[in-house]
């Protein structure tokens, strides 16, 4: 076995890679963590409209300390700004946007994604100390597309792209694409298909870090 030289994407590079694939005009909800960073990498001239569960549509960049409106936060409870054209709605209407299939895209983090598109991202066991789900199940079930941003493996090297999720599910067969620090993979009826990998990485090396079977996309 030959060692291949490659550099995994860091969080910023991963967010930038995802941002490349979001076309103008899409309505997008970003989960907490790496997904939130994606907004910073969409050029301002490309009009992508970001939504937050707590009733904000048209989120702009994070405000300077002097420009903070203490009444304007996102679902991660961070201060945000509203861009011209933005709007507010109450929670039932905000989740009408989510559950009614109106979002073109949602990007979430995950613990595991299975080859059939199952996602596990809210609990690490069935008897969590104090479970919390937030809007994850609504977003996963409701958005037109669900993309996942995550590390390809856990810190101790366990694959996160699996044949079957071991953690409690957030939704079944919901994920359409996974962006990891190593590769971009589509979820297809035939399983994971690799769209691209970081330079220097081989399919065999990627497979060694993946529980599910993977193949190159056509």
């Amino acid at each position, binding site marked *: 076995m030959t060692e291949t030289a490659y550099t995994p994407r860091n969080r910023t590079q991963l967010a930038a890679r995802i941002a490349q694939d979001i076309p103008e005009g899409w309505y997008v909800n970003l989960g907490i963590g790496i997904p939130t960073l994606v907004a910073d990498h969409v050029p301002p001239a490309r009009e992508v409209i970001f939504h*937050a569960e707590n009733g904000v549509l048209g989120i702009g960049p994070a405000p300077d300390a002097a420009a903070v409106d203490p009444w304007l936060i996102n679902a991660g*409870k961070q201060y945000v700004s509203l861009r011209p054209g933005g709007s507010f709605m*109450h929670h039932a209407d905000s*989740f009408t946007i989510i559950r009614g299939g109106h979002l073109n895209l949602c990007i979430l983090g995950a613990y595991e994604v299975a080859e059939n598109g199952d996602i596990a991202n809210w609990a690490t066991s069935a008897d969590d100390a104090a479970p919390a*789900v937030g809007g994850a199940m609504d977003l996963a*079930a409701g958005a037109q597309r669900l993309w996942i941003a995550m590390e390809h493996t856990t810190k101790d090297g366990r694959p996160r792209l699996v044949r079957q999720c071991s953690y409690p599910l957030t*939704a079944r067969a919901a994920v359409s694409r996974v962006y990891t620090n190593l590769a971009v993979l589509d979820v297809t009826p035939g399983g994971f298909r690799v769209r691209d990998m970081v330079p220097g990485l081989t399919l065999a090396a990627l497979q060694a870090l993946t529980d599910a079977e993977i193949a190159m996309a056509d």
Partner: protein
Amino acid sequence: MIDKFVNSVASALAGIQDGSTILLGGFGAVGQANQLIEGLVEAGVRDLTVVANNAGFGTAGLAHLLRAGRVRRLICSFPRIPGSTVFETLYRDGKIELELVPQGTLAERMRAAGAGIPAFYTATSAGTLLAEGKESREINGRTYVLEHALHGDVALVEAWRADRWGNLTYRASGRNFNPVVAMAARLTIVQTQHVAELGTLDPESIATPGIYVNRVVHLPHGDPVL
């Protein structure tokens, strides 16, 4: 003359019984009627079922109500308090019941209660632990879970402006669950930052019409602090 304003927190909360189900607006630190919740602590009501998105924020309001042991059951999507373990401790010690509900299902169950809809089907949570024990059904090839309306005895709302008919506006993301809880309870009590003369609120901007509101108290407590 209709005048829903009352002069004090105590009179706003008058008549709330032990064992009530209390619906709370608010998301994180923004838009939660903390002064009214503090009033509940002071009033001494107990054995409450509280419906809220989070388990409070900071140490006041819902976090205080929990700490004081007044809540028997929390219906919640994200029972966390940043920087606090009040809820986790109560839960671990078996001193509080938790009904964990996806955030959109929580909002829709209250909207349904307000709209006279006893139950509805949703794709959210289908095939997950949170759907266990619930009726589910396939419609057009997809599995949906039956969820029931969630009614409150009392709703506590924080508004930005209110007039004497109880018409309300909100500020920015302070709207959140407030209009939803306002329509889902038999007794809706509002604390407002500002008072508006009747007729001065733009009818196009009233997010909660006064028909949903029973009592209003003016509590200009300032901005939320994260």
